[in-house]
């Protein structure tokens, strides 16, 4: 192929305005997707005989401008942020971790076990230990899928999905059996030791310090992914596992590690629910955070900082939904429809963007690289 002339090559960003333009192009598809989903949501509300303006107004006013509502938003945002960061790490390495839900459950269980035992430890030891327990359980659960992919070539998509159901039933057994609070009216565990509580941050609300944990991890992850050899390695495996193998990177080991990290972060979300919110383990305690996380991670386009904003948005929806139902008479399930539709629309808008870019053959070559995500790693390691 001949040299495309120099003028036609995309120029590297230089200067503030060009940088800003570039960011805008990156942010445009997710914003368009969210806008379109809210619009369709409005249509659904009209069909249901309600006013979208009243409904959205109630929703966002409650969740963002009232003290209790905002605290509630933070409470919902915390697990969403953590588990989404987990999904995002997986995506960066080309792995679709759809098992966030199950890993949340296992993480909750891990934290419960640590939180119930080791009574009498000081908080500064007990709390980190309990969080670590959640990370370990969630991480191990996801590592199963990672291992099966690397060792047996099993697609992680299906295995993580199946593991969700198994984890959920397993936790249900645990709180009905070995960890059941004696004489409890419904299946839940005893309270964890107070030394393992994540402290509250806003008086008289349920908001807890887990949000700081999530924000800190988002920042750390940004640095790790962009500026460390580990992050470079993760990206290499995600973008081209074959080239990574030719560069002597242990691809299989990297995949298992990333899956464990991904599951560990989801497990931490479960930990926060147990140690920060309820202080005990309930049956079915996650209302589908693991699935919301997939939407959040996809909307955030691989950027941990963007996850903060997207998780805030999804937290807002969940937090204001009940008030919206009461004041505008719209079933709160409309937010599930909106959340689901954002994924549909982000897929469409990214595809349209791809088409827009696909004018010159040089760019085409890049888009032709087979999608690595979800394909079995044929890499013995």
């Amino acid at each position, binding site marked *: 192929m001949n040299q495309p002339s120099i003028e036609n090559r995309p120029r590297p960003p230089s200067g503030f305005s060009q940088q800003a333009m570039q960011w805008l192009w990156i942010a445009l598809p997710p914003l368009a997707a969210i806008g379109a989903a809210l619009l369709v949501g409005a249509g*659904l509300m009209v*069909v*249901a005989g309600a006013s979208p303006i009243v409904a959205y107004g109630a929703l966002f006013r409650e969740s963002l401008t009232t003290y209790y509502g905002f605290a509630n938003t933070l409470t919902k945002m915390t697990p969403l942020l953590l588990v989404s960061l987990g999904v995002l790490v997986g995506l960066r390495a080309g792995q*679709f971790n*759809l098992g966030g839900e199950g890993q949340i459950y296992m993480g909750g269980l891990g934290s419960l076990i640590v939180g119930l035992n080791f009574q009498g430890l000081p908080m500064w030891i007990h709390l980190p230990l309990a969080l670590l327990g959640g990370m370990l359980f969630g991480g191990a659960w996801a590592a199963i899928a990672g291992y*099966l992919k690397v060792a*047996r*070539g*099993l697609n992680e*998509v*299906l*295995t993580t*999905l*199946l*593991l*969700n*159901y*198994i984890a959920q*039933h*397993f936790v*249900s*057994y645990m709180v*009905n*059996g070995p960890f059941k609070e004696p004489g409890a009216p419904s299946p839940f565990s005893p309270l964890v030791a107070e030394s393992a509580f994540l402290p509250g941050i806003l008086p008289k609300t349920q908001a807890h310090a887990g949000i700081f944990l999530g924000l800190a991890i988002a920042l750390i992850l940004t640095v790790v992914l962009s500026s460390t050899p580990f992050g470079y390695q993760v990206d290499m495996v995600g973008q081209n596992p074959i080239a990574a193998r030719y560069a002597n990177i242990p691809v299989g080991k990297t995949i298992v590690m990333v899956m464990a990290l991904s599951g560990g972060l989801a497990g931490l979300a479960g930990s926060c629910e147990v140690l920060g919110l309820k202080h005990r383990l309930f049956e079915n305690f996650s209302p589908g955070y693991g*699935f919301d996380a*997939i*939407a959040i991670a*996809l909307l955030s386009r691989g950027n941990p900082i963007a996850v903060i904003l997207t998780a805030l948005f999804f937290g807002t929806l969940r937090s204001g939904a009940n008030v919206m139902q009461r004041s505008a008479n719209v*079933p709160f*399930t*409309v*937010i*599930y*429809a*909106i*959340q*689901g*539709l954002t*994924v*549909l629309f*982000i*897929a*469409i808008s*990214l*595809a*349209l963007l*791809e*088409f827009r870019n696909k004018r010159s053959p040089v760019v*085409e070559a890049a888009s*032709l690289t*087979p*999608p690595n*995500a*979800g*394909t079995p790693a044929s890499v013995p390691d």
Partner: protein
Amino acid sequence: MDAQFTFLQDYVLASIRLTVPLAYAALGGLLSERSGVLNIGLEGMVLTGAFASSAVALMTGNAWYGLIAAIAISSLVGLVHAALCVNLRVNQLVSGLAINLAAAGLTAFCARILFPSGTVALPKINPLPIPLLHSIPVLGALFTQDILVYGLLILIPIGSYLLFHSSWGLALRAVGNYPRAADTAGLSVSWVRYISVILCGALCGIAGAYLALVHVGFFTEGMSAGKGFIALAALILGRWNPVYTALACLLFGATDALQLRIQAFGIDIPYQFLLMLPYVAALLALIGIAGKATPPAALGLPYSKESK
């Protein structure tokens, strides 16, 4: 003696009831994946079918209209998946995922509006006893099924024959393995994939309608409960072959039925472990088959004419 017979008969019938939706969904998945379009959206298509059939059956009071609506609406979902994967060349996993999440959200919302008081009993599709055969003692119950069961039994051999001995099946296999070869041979890759994925939607619609109108009798949010994913596992276990896939569905259906029986018998195993059983079985089956089942070569890869 008699109790054992009744038990066995009940068990077989329950296995069939649990297998039918899996098998319809898995055969749909087979069509889609044989054409090269990955489809984890089966779950969402089944759920959509269940909801559409419930809604229309309730509104019209006629289960048959419900079935037709399920087929129509789920086909539309198939059309969306096809458009995303074939024309827009979206990552096929993301597209399937989007369909699952959107279907879960939309059906949950619509269900609150249509069934405000929660679960509503629906008109059912009634069994259709086959003359003479149904009166055979013991075995008669097998011939007192509804039309969807018979339809499945007819669909499996016909589908298998068409796949391997018809020009449609040949086109499907060529497109799923090497779309460029099919293209240069004068077939339209897009057309084959569209038709396959839309038919997949239709079959998932039947699966959903069976679930709502025959098996359960009412609609609940998220009632597909991972059946689409188990159907996918069955498809892999059945190595993308209609007969083997149906048998794999029977295995999972029978596992599910077994756990229900064990619960009913009050055997001392925590019921949560029994509830896990179908998912564990699917996972173990996948581990067992790993490396031995070769998917269609072009599965998951979008096709475009003007690229090398």
